[in-house]
């Protein structure tokens, strides 16, 4: 049987700040290499609800403040309610960089304005002013995964995110700042969706997370567990381990 997946990409022209599209390339190729047909559709001003309901896997990247203002009302009024329903029903997704802020309860911008999010993720984000230092740099996070227990990435955010009671963090920050630089949490997981402050091509050095997303999407669509063919990820793990070593990850553990 030929499996098919449709990946929906939130506002690709407005929410793709710094190599975010890499995640789309990676998901698509990793599907294709296993004979899974993969279609990418934009979720933006031109998308109607019946198209949205064909999506099996969601992706959202980062946006600059101005871009966010352009799309926020369309997202809240039209796309948001359907998105919430899909995520509540188990559609998996990856939200990197700025998009998690839109999915949370609220986001206070640097000048103090409070924007209402979609309320899908039980969390709030506050930006304490443009004169406050941003959280910038490489990071290592420990996650609950069967294969590898680390993810590596690069964070660059001004806002600080605080998780509510009904939501779990994506992982524990070992190196870097994570959600707020205070409680060691990084990102969030709600149902089958992952939010992370790791921006850009997060999946490039974390193929285990890419495959988890693909597996979940297939499972949701075909209502059974489909074993994914193993790929040669030697390069990906070399890059991953190089960063762990350079950032002194092993040294901290022992």
């Amino acid at each position: 049987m030929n499996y098919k997946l449709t990946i929906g990409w939130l506002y690709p022209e407005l929410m793709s700040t710094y190599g975010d599209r890499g995640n789309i390339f990676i998901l698509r190729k990793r599907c294709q290499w296993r004979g899974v047909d993969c279609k990418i559709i934009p979720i933006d001003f031109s998308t109607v609800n019946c198209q949205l309901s064909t999506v099996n896997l969601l992706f959202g990247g980062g946006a600059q403040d101005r871009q966010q203002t352009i799309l926020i009302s369309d997202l809240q009024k039209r796309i948001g309610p359907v998105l919430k329903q899909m995520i509540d029903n188990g559609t998996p997704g990856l939200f990197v960089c700025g998009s998690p802020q839109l999915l949370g309860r609220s986001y206070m911008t640097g000048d103090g304005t409070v924007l209402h999010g979609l309320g899908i993720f039980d969390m709030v984000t506050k930006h304490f002013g443009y004169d406050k230092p941003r959280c910038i740099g490489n990071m290592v996070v420990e996650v609950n995964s069967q294969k590898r227990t680390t993810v590596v990435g690069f964070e660059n955010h001004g806002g600080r995110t605080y998780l509510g009671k009904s939501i779990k963090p994506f992982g524990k920050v070992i190196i870097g700042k994570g959600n707020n630089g205070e409680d060691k949490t990084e990102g969030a997981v709600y149902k089958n969706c992952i939010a992370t402050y790791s921006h850009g091509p997060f999946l490039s050095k974390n193929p285990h997370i890419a495959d988890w997303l693909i597996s979940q999407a297939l499972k949701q669509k075909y209502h059974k567990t489909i074993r994914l063919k193993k790929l040669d990820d030697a390069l990906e793990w070399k890059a991953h381990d190089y960063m762990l070593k350079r950032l002194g990850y092993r040294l901290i553990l022992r």
Partner: protein
Amino acid sequence: MRYNLAVSIGRIVSCVSTVFHKGAGGTWAGEIALRIYPNILKDLTHKLRKGIILVAGTNGKTTTSLMIKKIIESQGASVIHNASGANLLNGVVSALLLSTNKDWGIFEVDENVLPILLSYIEPKMIVLLNLFRDQLDRYGEVDAIAGKWKKSFSTLTEKTTLIANADDPLITAICEQLQAKKVYIGIENSSLYRKVMQHATDTIYCPKCGTRLTYGGFYYSHLGKWSCGSCGFTHPDVTITSKDYQCPIEGIYNQYNAISAAAVGVVLQFETTGIQSALASFTPAFGRMERMFARGKKVRIVLSKNPTGFNESLQTYLDSKDKGPVLLLLNDRIPDGTDVSWIWDVDFELLDEQKREIIISGDRVFDMAIRLKYAVTNLERITIFDSLASSLDAALAKTQSDETLWILATYSAMLDVRKIITGKSIF
């Protein structure tokens, strides 16, 4: 008193660093002088007889500044300029410390430094090339820079002329409603439109009202013939186009650099033929399409430090009549930007059009390897090296005697590979 002390010590430091081959003044002299006397900039600029020309924008600063220098010098005027890359306050001060009896100061300035510089000096001209995403970890968002520029330009008077790229909607928006005079440049050649829009664009939604802009055509990234169907914000009429002046080097981005530099000559009322012949004799700055020889093989080094720049380097490499393998070098040191995410905004898929050898190295060689793994179909033609020196050896060995080795490198990697080839350092 502090001024004299600052100047004297600065000059001594400058001499010492020149003697020790640390490059032409660099930034140390300026740094020390600034610490002794923070207001030094204001005083030093008064020594220039004719005035200051600033060159700003994400890509093309070094090449454009040198083109302007060439054009002005061809008319017999004397020029001081800052060393390439030394485009922070300390670099500008370093250059000024060495200037005695010069007519013009031509300075390329970092995006974040431009507003600070304008609080000290009133330039005769500011050349505004473009604004693209670049080293997000250092510069922040494009819109934030645009905002800072716009604010700092509000104090300019008609004594300053802005030479602005009309094909960039964000640059045009910044230049609206200012006292300063404006001269717009643009390509104006529909035969150069790209077939499809590139992914690495930053301003394709109206900077004024947020509606998606409509384009008659794109030259590269978001540069093109744009207009907003909603608020009526439109591409302004241009005074100087690519049809008016011939560009001495390949690449559409160099056409922008050339006509921006030519515009400076036009404002100064130089004759067209004079500007044209100065441009024709232009040779590229180091690492900017620079031609060299390494072990008898022809080499071209192209600084490629952000998505838009890298896309244009790749396109120029593929279109050039100088065929050969390509060496891609990716570092993540401070001058390169510590975040290498941007390589995923570069269209490396272009390399699939021609089956040439690809050699890669640099601090983040594995990140580059993964990017290529997802971009090209034929992975056997990619060779990966930890060591930069070994990668250069292998790349030269793969270059036939009638071929050219193209080296596309981020900033620090470009300096390093150039050092290996020439056997000496620039700074």
